[in-house]
């Protein structure tokens, strides 16, 4: 399964959204402005990324500045988990 599809599946799990919502997720989708993730959902996503790929999302976020956090995309996460 490609990374984007797998990430989208995890995003569906943490949000409880449906397939139509998931179909609109692209690498350019921003977690905040486009997917409207809430902080509890980001925390749940972090757990899911750690379980699946062993990556540390909080440590990654700690290295970002405010503009990068605002503009964080699904593509950024894909690069993180495949790095």
């Amino acid at each position: 399964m490609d990374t984007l599809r797998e990430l989208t599946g995890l995003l569906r799990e943490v949000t409880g959204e449906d397939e139509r919502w998931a179909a609109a997720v692209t690498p350019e989708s921003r977690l905040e402005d486009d997917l409207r993730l809430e902080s509890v959902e980001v925390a749940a996503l972090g757990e899911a990324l750690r379980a699946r790929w062993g990556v540390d999302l909080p440590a990654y976020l700690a290295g970002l500045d405010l503009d990068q956090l605002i503009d964080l995309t699904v593509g950024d996460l894909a690069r993180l988990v495949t790095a």
Partner: protein
Amino acid sequence: MSCFLFVAPPLAGHVYAAAAVASALAERGHEVAWAGPESSLRRMLGDGVTVYSTGMRPYRGQRDRGFRAVRSLWEGFVLPYARFTLPAVEKAVAAFAPDVVATDQHALAGAVAAHRHGVRWASLAPQSMELTRPFRALPKVEAWIRRGIDNAGLSIGGADPRFSPHLVLAFTSPALTGPHDFPAHYALVGPALGPRAAPDFPWDALDPARRTVLVTMGTLAEDVARDFYPRMVGALRALRAHVQAVVAAPPGAVPDPPPGTVVAPQVPVLELMPRLAAVACHAGLNTVCEALAHGVPLVVAPIKHDQPVTAAQVVAAGAGIRVRFGRSGPDELAAALTAVLDEPGYAAAAGRVRKSFAAAGGAPAAASHLEQLANRP
């Protein structure tokens, strides 16, 4: 007798806590005045107080959430508001010659003016954001805020105008914040609940056979909550046999609520509290503390700013359930309400926080701290 100048942004959650402390000081014979936007402050404080008017800046970006809201809060409100009001706050300090300036952590002009005039000052923390350093895990965000303050010319001798070196008064308690190594000059006094004008309310409309739940999403949320209320109405409809809701919102914003629901733009929150079985809110610290001061458990749907921080504190204290403001559907909201209403652990935890608030002393304790600061040699 001492003189105290209060400086606060014209937001209900900020002004009401400061007003309760100001009233306690006035009752003890001290002289109290305010610096802020006069018409907004008078709406909340009445005509009996002295106000040095500073004018107002509109806050653009009220619809923002998440990190975008962090940026718009500082770039769109706190920093320009501080710069715009600083000359008027300085004039107020010169004219009133207070012994102590008590300034909100988001009214930085009060700290700067006090510092420039050699007056002792205290920080008031009526919200969670600047108290427990929620961005400690995001050092570049913390640094961005500090840089913004510095670049706006608002740092005071290199120090941070959000944190008085003399006294930081926080309207919460460790039962809610959790354990933190607060410095010795921090006083966590619990909520400062003072007398305030209570709007009319149809008390006869409350049904004694059902449990009463208050739904209130805050004064800034009217725009963004339009999408939340229909989902909440769905939850209330599912629970209508046992639950009657009072919703603090413009009636047009709450479509087709179940029969008996009371919808009003303003409700007497403190008078309602003793009759409530639960509160569903946006996790504004003011509302959360008002509920917990009465031992009322919560369903919290944080929208932005410090609200996710406060919501996490409510959950950690065991006094409520967090739901998702933007996404939780009627079923999830109904399940959360049912849990806090029916599972006794939530009310018991809320009762523990109530006790810690009572021990913290509230407005009288805050007033005593300010008196001691004024009397220091």
